[in-house]
């Protein structure tokens, strides 16, 4: 099945198998129908069937019974999607232009988180038990920006020192960036220890508001707000500036961009800066949202990979779609699985990935290579 699914109709041969474009297209309907049925059942279950007296117990009730619980789950998914987007958009930006799978993206995330935490502690003047009330907006934003800038510079240095010589050699670049992430992980363990640390949200965003009878943390909405601002800024940069046009042109055909007299090396450097900066911003946000510890780096590399593979490598639109889908599945699967089976919810994330790839082999917004 993967054989015919991974092709872009028309011009690919199948050895013994004779499949015309028409029969290929017909075959492709099968996964689409299956996915349609699965999604339809999930929607019906969440809206009407879950946790009713005559069905199975789940931790959140069906939407028509418990609209508040449904809304909270929805918001959980959306706000987590915001954080996913900030991190994954950086990853996809770098991949889109340079075809570099930056395996150090997670390490950048964690390093920025640690730098942010350290700086926040210095600014507040306490190294433990910091209360939100003691943290001003300034003492949150500055550590975030400094942490992100540090890893952005580090990203450019890594690109200039190691990657630019291996442009176009995907495997070498992947191995180099894995090496960098291993070295960074070790050094971070030495510098920042093995215990989980947390960056503290500023007091002004730490409060709850009431929505359909449920309390909801404003800090999560704040996180989503930052993600939306980042998304708009990225969109404006890529669509309304000359640099953005050059980057999009470079994604399409880098050689042609060079033939037009544009020094792509500079564009690559800038893109690596922005991509790593986004990983760093995500790191500081993630450290406030869920903390930072050894292992967080690998987890966020995996998160980025899943988002961009769902959305389509190299596509910012895809990063939005992938983040929302991944965020929703992460939020809804534990809330609406039968209570005895919630620990299986993690499978659903990877299941989503498999389903998306079955229907759209290049991801939702990906292009065939």
């Amino acid at each position, binding site marked *: 099945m993967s054989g015919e699914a991974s092709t872009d109709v028309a011009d690919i041969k199948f050895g013994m198998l004779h499949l015309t474009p028409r029969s290929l297209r017909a075959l492709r309907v099968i996964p689409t129908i299956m996915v349609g049925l699965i999604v339809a059942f999930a929607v019906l279950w969440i809206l009407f069937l879950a946790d009713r007296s005559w069905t199975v117990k789940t931790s959140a009730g069906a939407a028509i019974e418990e609209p508040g619980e449904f809304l909270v789950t929805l918001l959980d998914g959306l706000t987590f999607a915001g954080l996913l987007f900030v991190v994954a958009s950086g990853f996809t930006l770098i991949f889109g232009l340079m075809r570099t799978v930056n395996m150090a993206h997670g390490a950048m995330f964690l390093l920025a988180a640690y730098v942010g935490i350290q700086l926040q502690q210095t600014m507040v003047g306490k190294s433990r038990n910091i209360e939100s009330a003691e943290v001003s907006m300034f003492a949150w934003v500055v550590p975030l920006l400094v942490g992100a800038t540090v890893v952005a510079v580090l990203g450019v240095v890594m690109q200039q020192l190691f990657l630019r010589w291996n442009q176009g050699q995907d495997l070498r670049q992947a191995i180099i960036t894995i090496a960098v992430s291993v070295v960074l992980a070790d050094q971070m363990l030495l510098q920042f220890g093995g215990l989980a640390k947390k960056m503290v949200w500023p007091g002004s965003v730490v409060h709850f508001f009431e929505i359909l009878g449920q309390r909801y943390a404003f800090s999560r909405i704040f996180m989503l707000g930052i993600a939306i601002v980042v998304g708009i800024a990225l969109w404006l940069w890529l669509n309304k500036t000359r640099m953005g046009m050059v980057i999009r042109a470079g994604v*399409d055909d880098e050689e*042609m961009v*060079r*033939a*037009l*007299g*544009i020094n*792509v090396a500079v564009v690559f450097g800038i893109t690596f800066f922005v991509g790593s900066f986004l990983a760093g911003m995500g790191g500081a946000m993630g450290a406030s949202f869920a903390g930072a510890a050894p292992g967080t780096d690998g987890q966020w590399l995996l998160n980025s990979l899943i988002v961009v593979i769902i959305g389509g490598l190299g596509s910012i639109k895809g990063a939005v779609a992938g983040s929302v889908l991944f965020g929703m599945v992460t939020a809804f699967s534990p809330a609406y699985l039968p209570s005895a089976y919630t620990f299986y919810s993690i499978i659903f994330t990877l299941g989503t990935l498999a389903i998306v790839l079955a229907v759209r082999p290049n991801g939702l917004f990906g292009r065939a290579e």
Partner: protein
Amino acid sequence: MSDSVLRVDGLCAGYGASQVLENLSFEMGQEAVCIVGRNGMGKTTLCKTLMGFLQPSAGAITFGGSRIDGLSPDRIARRGLAYIPQGRRLFPSLTVDEHLEMLAKGTRGKRWTPAAVYELFPRLAERRQNGGAELSGGEQQMLAVGRALLLNGKLILMDEPSEGLAPTIVDTLIEVVHRLVEEGTAVLVVEQNLRAATSMATRQLVMVSGQIEIETTSHELSDDADLQRQYLGVDA
């Protein structure tokens, strides 16, 4: 011939062990020149080598008085060698306007600005907001020409510009080439289409097996059926 714009001496280049260009030499001034030849004679390889995508294994390329062999493609382009590749190679993600806008920096006050390109090709102005992939073949070629013009270069290198175009569009293209030469830009065209080649330039260089075999004129080439059959595989 006026001052030399491009001079190629004993150029050798190829892919790995297979040598495609063998001791190729020619010189051109501020004029239009066509390089004609059958498929597989190394015409596109020559373009790629001139643009710096392929490093020559021997020989020299002198452009505007200085050596450009060994430079990177973006440097060569900034020296004033503008490239219109085979198959246009527009950017599918960019609109017509963005194709020109991304190169508009530094064109102010020069001969070719996005506005001047729209003036040359009014059809493009109507399609400003369309994506590169939504254009007809002719419009795509106009955009590829316009994009190259924005470099305000000394020499425009066209690889198979008439390929896949309707005859009326080819006529427009021929007219543009004449106009460019009149305005002082040199044009080097690599062509397989005999009519297009002979209408664009008087000087015709015939390429065979990676070398310039003979030089002839458009009149001789269009009148001499034997010549055509021998070098272009055309049965007139």
